């Protein structure tokens, strides 16, 4: 029999699929994937739940599948969240070290983190993650753990990710209706990065782009810490919609066409693709050139937005390990080449090589968020005692929030 907290379940309520992955923490902290459950998603648009009932049913079905394949009983899950409403920024907090011997203790570290997080976010937003980046002691740069050091002034840089509270609560509420407990939530980009990047990659600097069905999430690591994150509410769904509009065919045909014949490479010579007669749909012929052009424009645009964002934050020169593309759209033909021309950096299609398990699962880019959630869970179980977790922040009652504000004053 396995100890309870050695089994960790990651759940992603995505736009194209609801997917649960069961991981087991084996000796030495390695993770072994022992089960997967996946169903097509019906209640999600652009990464956010729009139909609670359908989403709840999908979650239920996916988890039943996962339970069967892993032969375990699932009581709680770690869930990923995303959506175009998520925002981020970097902030620096500072405190004076006031105790007599000028030694930096847990208290100072806690206070400086509080101070760094005390920033203005819109009223309806809640801080999802406040990730420590680096510390400064009396202005000295690049300190990772200041505990025990001497100094008069301690500063900390944090990366804050925040989003609309009610929208974040929707995912949690859906899972609770199944009924299941949500152990914690994490933003999709962070989860994907944990699955795809090794600590060496994080140190060298890398950007992970998770292009899923409804959103494109990205995260930038530099010197081992998270430097920047972002969400663009554009994904594979948009590609399909573009094809459907451009070639005047229904969505399901457009989707099949994208997967079977689609490519991001522009063709010099046109080819004709004949669509077979299906129930209620007549024979059609479409131009492959047009198909590829529509897809190329959309993906090129989306990746260019990320490139612009990297340039704006002057991060392009620090990405030694290059670009990692994951999520369902990473499977699109020609993705590697297109991304290479846009970023001018080495491009890898992301596989979740930080865990062990069946190759089919690990090498599928669409599982990286869910697999990453297991690694996230492993990390957050380790330092649970430190700070309120994202799930606590999001589900906090207003009363509790008020008390906290009072305590801060």
């Amino acid at each position, binding site marked *: 029999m396995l100890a309870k907290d050695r089994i960790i379940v990651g759940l992603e309520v995505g736009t194209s699929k609801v997917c649960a992955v069961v991981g087991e923490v084996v000796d030495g902290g390695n993770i072994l994937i022992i089960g997967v459950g996946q169903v097509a998603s019906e209640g999600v648009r652009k990464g956010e739940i729009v139909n609670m009932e359908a989403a709840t049913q999908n979650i239920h079905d996916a988890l039943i599948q996962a339970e069967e394949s892993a032969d375990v009983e699932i009581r709680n899950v770690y869930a990923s969240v995303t959506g175009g409403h998520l925002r981020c920024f970097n902030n620096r907090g500072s405190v004076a070290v006031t105790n007599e011997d000028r030694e930096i203790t847990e208290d100072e570290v806690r206070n400086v983190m509080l101070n760094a997080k005390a*920033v*203005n976010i819109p009223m309806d937003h809640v801080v999802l993650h406040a990730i420590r980046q680096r510390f400064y002691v009396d202005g000295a740069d690049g300190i990772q753990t200041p505990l025990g050091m001497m100094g008069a002034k301690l500063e900390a840089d944090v990366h804050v990710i925040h989003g609309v509270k009610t929208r974040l609560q929707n995912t949690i509420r859906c899972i609770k209706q199944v009924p299941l407990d949500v152990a914690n939530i994490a933003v999709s980009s962070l989860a994907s990065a944990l699955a795809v990047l090794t600590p060496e990659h994080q140190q060298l600097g890398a950007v992970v782009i998770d292009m899923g069905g409804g959103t494109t999430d990205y995260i930038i690591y530099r010197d081992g810490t998270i430097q920047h994150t972002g969400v663009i509410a554009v994904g594979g769904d948009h590609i399909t919609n573009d094809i459907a509009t451009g070639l005047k065919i229904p969505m399901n045909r457009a989707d099949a066409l994208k997967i079977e014949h689609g490519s991001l490479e522009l063709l010099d010579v046109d080819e004709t693709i004949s669509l077979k007669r299906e129930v209620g749909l007549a024979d059609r012929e479409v131009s492959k050139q047009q198909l590829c052009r*529509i897809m190329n424009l*959309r993906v*090129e645009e989306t990746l260019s937005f990320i490139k612009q964002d990297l340039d704006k934050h002057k991060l392009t020169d620090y990405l030694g390990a290059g670009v990692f593309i994951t999520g369902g759209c990473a499977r699109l033909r020609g993705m590697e080449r297109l991304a290479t021309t846009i970023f001018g950096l080495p491009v890898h299609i992301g596989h979740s090589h930080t865990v062990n398990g069946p190759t089919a699962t690990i090498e599928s880019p669409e599982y990286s968020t869910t697999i990453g959630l297991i690694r996230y869970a492993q990390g957050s179980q380790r330092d649970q005692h430190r700070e309120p977790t994202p799930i606590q922040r999001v589900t906090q009652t207003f009363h509790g929030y008020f008390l906290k504000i009072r305590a801060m004053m």
Partner: protein
Amino acid sequence: MTPIRKPTESNDAPVRARLKVFGVGGAGCNAVGQIAGAIAGDAQHPLTGIELVAINTDLQALSGITGAEKMQIGSAITHGLGAGGDVELGLRAAQQDAERLEAIAQNTGIVFIVAGLGGGTGTGAAPVVARAAKEQGALVLAFVMLPFAFEGVGRRQKAIAGLDQLKAQADAVICIPNDKLFKVAGERATALDAFQRGNELVATGVQAFWQLLARKGLINVDFADLRNALGSKHSDGLFSFGTATGKEKSREAVKVLLENPLFDGGDVLGKAEAVLISVLGGPDMTLADVQHAVEPISRIASRGQVTMGAAIDEAHANRLTITVIATVNALPRRAAPAPVATRQPVQEVTTPILPLVKPAVSKKEAQAKQENLPLEGVSRGRFEKSEPTLYNGEDLDVPTYIRRGVSLKR
């Protein structure tokens, strides 16, 4: 509505509508005071000649302002003290002096109301001032600053209640949430800097209108156009601007404008019903510059009725400033008095009063009819019912090839 000027008053020189800026309450008076100070310190200041009025309950706060007309309201109620955060008191103070407010707004084409919401006088009195000005036939635009989030829920609720009141009275309300000032001024700016930047923003907004009407125009916009675009809309507004120099100045200026924190991803511009674009350049400005500046913005604001003006300022050589003011109707669509807003004023203020630019008017009428074409709905396809994905003002749910104008060869 009463005509703005009697035809007899307009002799040979082209008449332009008078423009007054009313600062209401503490924050409003501060803004007006700062504009007055800037004008006094600079003979070439673009706002020279503008009429400023500071309105407050607090006599002491008023005494600190120079260069603006001052008006104390509610002296019988507050005895020269402030309203102390009491909205009711601010409201009554203004009502008591409603006649004086009307008198001061008389014969004015455009009234700008500048106020900070959340306090007593600004929140309570601004709607009354707006109403008074409206009754005198002026076009009333309000620039309001909302409190910081840290100022607490109570103050915010007051501000929002006041905002609703103001929207019901004024033609357009442009909100500058103080929280955005952080973004404009930077996280580490001092409080004084941040507020000063807020006031500068207001000044820039006023200036955009002022130069539209006052400067020698390459493409003229007159008061009738403005009224047409903004009148009686009771709308939410967006305000942003960008300045650039150099060879590619028009494209650069658009970029700066789109990146301005006030623009906030262009949520409003994408949905805007009325958009005012003002381009200010030096004598060296070419028509191509104007086109490059206006085209990307009007493309984003494809759903709205675009009014544009280009003006020339000698001091602005080799520089280009674009200012955009966009409004979205805050009331339900059906309640909007559309026919009144689009036709009646045009008929009323005809040629002898204000020089009308004919093509602009006819073009606008044609555009107004186009508004209801279901074009957007078709191209958004699957995402028709979901909230648009706006990125730099573009709706990303619309296929890229349509937005880029790439034709798919058949």
